[in-house]
């Protein structure tokens, strides 16, 4: 059983791809600014993360000049 299959389901979606496009940034550039690996940012961008450290969230919001609510949305229940 893979890690994703065993994860508890959630409806949090990350809008990192939208924010990157709006700011004309690449994932690698953001990784350099934030101090998080590209792999971890990719996990976050593709909604495979299960938790985010407050330190990572702070660094992302600083780098992207946004608020946590701009980064994440909760999809409506089906």
């Amino acid at each position, binding site marked *: *059983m893979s*890690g994703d299959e*065993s*994860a508890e389901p959630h409806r949090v979606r990350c809008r990192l791809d939208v924010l990157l496009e709006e700011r004309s940034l690449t994932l690698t550039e953001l990784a350099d600014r934030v101090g*998080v690996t590209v792999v*971890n*940012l990719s*996990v*976050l961008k593709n909604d*495979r*993360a*299960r*938790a*985010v*450290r407050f330190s*990572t969230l702070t660094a992302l919001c600083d780098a992207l000049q946004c608020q946590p609510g701009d980064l994440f949305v909760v999809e409506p229940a089906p």
Partner: protein
Amino acid sequence: MNDTRPYLSSGWASLVTVLVVVVGVVALVGSVAYWINGLTHAQANVTVSVQVQQPLAQAWNPQGTDWSSDSVLLPRTALPDGVGLHVAPDSVALTAWDSTLLEQALARVNVLVVGFGIALGSWLLRPVLRSLELGRPFDPGNARRVAGVALVIAAVGLLAPACSALAATVVLSRLDLGDPAGVAASWRLELLPFLVMALVLAVAESFRRGEQMREDVEGLV
């Protein structure tokens, strides 16, 4: 204060992995060879563990000689021809001539059980040690493997003495040396295997919690 030094470094884990595999193979091959060797001794002497009841022991030893000092061959007056009793500090061994194939097979099957137990335990431990060596102690399946080792320890601790008792019962039955004669099969359960099983189960539970924590941390960004 956190102890940052590893109890089992990667290098030692690698060495222990090799040792565990070697011990497992030697135990398996050795126990099978020992058991097969026993089968070739059919019609010769067979030795089984027994217990001597107190009245008979007193009859054989009226002076109350201290048997605990050495292994003593008891008088054979009350025993059939070709049968001897050897008293050691913590056990009594009965040796009987003209054994059957079944008796020889049963008399050594306890060693076979221990050998298979060690082999199975080492087979289960090898991937656990390997993941320790790679710095990934909480890989999926390790908790189940450690719990399996605990189960093997309990099974061997129970089965090995049971096999010895069964062998003694079969030999005593052939010799007609049952309870009326004051000799009985000895089935003494040791406490140690079950204590070790409890300890290993505690380790297995720690591994299970560790696997859960690893899954949590894997999705943490």
